[in-house]
């Protein structure tokens, strides 16, 4: 397996005629946790959503440049987008379980990808809820609505739902920003556990969180006049946090702006 899960080259991203991302080039390592940090509105989430082409849902979005996922450009014409999104699953900022039962939430992905046998679905539901450290809490109420869980549990349910399609990469868009500290702790433990088998890319606002759990950190910043985001600095997390090379990175992580 190659060292990089994603290789981003000369990536520009446009909303209508606004250039949101400006000429990004970097690689995201496989089986590691990479964090995107930067002030609000600096394009972190936009970049994340380029990685599984979720931005395609926006009518006026346009991408230039290439993003290779294990050596295959995901913006090539012959790419099957549902298959791509199955390989690169996404966890959102607000927990967004479907208003269905816990079981149906987890079984949603396998079902749309063609798993029909009840016994097979049962196995997937149990094993992924185990992986998401939620099984013990919900095993007796699988038919309850996913919306009846607490915020932190809902987010772990969403992680289970994503894991159920057996992805290679997990994208997380500020997965802990809407939940309490204890649940955050649980989810961070879970991310650590998942790193062994998956590539994880997360956007975070929380410097400590980025420092605690990621191995690699990318710092993005929007230029003042144009508003376009550039990659300012990218490297090993401990180096970025202890010896930032760029003055702007240092200012940001020491809390001088953002």
């Amino acid at each position, binding site marked *: 397996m190659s060292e990089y899960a994603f290789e981003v080259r000369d990536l520009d991203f446009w909303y209508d005629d606004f250039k949101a991302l400006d000429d990004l080039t970097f690689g995201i390592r496989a089986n590691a946790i990479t964090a995107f940090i930067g002030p609000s509105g600096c394009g972190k989430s936009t970049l994340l959503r380029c990685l*599984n082409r*979720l931005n395609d*849902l926006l009518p006026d979005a346009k991408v230039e440049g290439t993003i290779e996922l294990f050596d295959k450009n995901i913006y090539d014409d012959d790419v099957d987008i*549902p*298959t*791509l*999104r*199955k390989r690169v*699953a*996404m966890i*959102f900022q*607000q927990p*967004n*379980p*479907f*208003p*269905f039962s816990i079981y149906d939430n987890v079984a*949603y*992905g396998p*079902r*749309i*990808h063609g798993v029909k046998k009840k016994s097979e679905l049962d196995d997937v539901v149990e094993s992924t809820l185990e992986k998401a450290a939620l099984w013990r809490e919900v095993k007796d109420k699988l038919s309850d609505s996913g*919306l009846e869980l607490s915020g932190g549990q809902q987010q772990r349910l*969403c992680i289970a*739902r*994503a894991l159920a*399609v057996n992805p290679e990469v997990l994208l997380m868009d500020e997965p802990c920003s809407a939940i309490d500290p204890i649940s955050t702790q649980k989810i961070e433990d879970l991310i650590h556990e998942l790193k062994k088998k998956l590539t994880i890319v997360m956007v975070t606002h929380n410097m400590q969180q980025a420092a605690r759990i990621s191995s690699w950190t990318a710092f993005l910043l929007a230029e003042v006049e144009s508003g376009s985001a550039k990659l300012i600095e990218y490297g090993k997390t401990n180096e970025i946090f202890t010896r930032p090379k760029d003055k702007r990175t240092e200012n940001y992580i020491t809390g001088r702006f953002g």
Partner: protein
Amino acid sequence: MRRIEDKIAIALLWMSSLIVLAFLFVLLGYILIKGLPVLSPRFLFSFPHGVEARGGILPMIAATFYLTILAGFIVSPIAIGGAVYLTQYAKPGRLVRMIRFGADALSSVPSIVFGLFGLALFVSIFGYSMIAGGLTLSLMILPVVMRASEDAILAVPRSFREASFGLGATQWQTIKNVMIPVALPRILTGLILGIGRAFGETAAVFLTAGMAINLPFLPTEPGRTMTVHLYLLATEGISLDIAFGTALLLSIFILSFNFLARYMGRRSVKGGR
């Protein structure tokens, strides 16, 4: 001086709302007093007989439900399909605006015009029949149900859609497995309101389903709905008692539809977020 003006204004506003409420009670009360003596199990479950149409109105109740349910079955797939297309697939532009405008215009066409159209088209094919009436009614309520379905689908939170796409679902899978199930309570609310309108419709029905007193079985059979029965009893002076009994029953059914629609609407507020 200002305070007196204020008081007068409040009194007038209060009175106008009181008049609305009073009118409702007078109307319902009058129908209740006149109609209640007629209501009995026999009235619900037997055929009319004699020149004064004594006995029951079973065939009319049956024909009314038959027509309404048939119209509901015809209108649902078209309305939901149209709503899905307009909200999910169609590119915003002239065609969409024209379809919306068409639907709105259609909903303000007088029902007798629908009846005439149904007579010219459907009756000439099927004769006076449940199917001719059902088709006419479904055309009539299509705009209402379609607009309600559109609103219901648009009200589904974007996060559900993104979650589904994010798991690798196709657009159709997302619509079928997430959008429609989540929107369903509100779609049903719209459908029930539309059906309520069909249920109480008279003009479009007697031109298409006919006036024959018949317990309809096949969709090609004619029938007389409760509203048509009521109309004939009253205009031809056959029996005002039976007319009021029919009116009371009709009001009870339609009020139940309204309560059902409200109940469904409330449930959807609780269910989706």
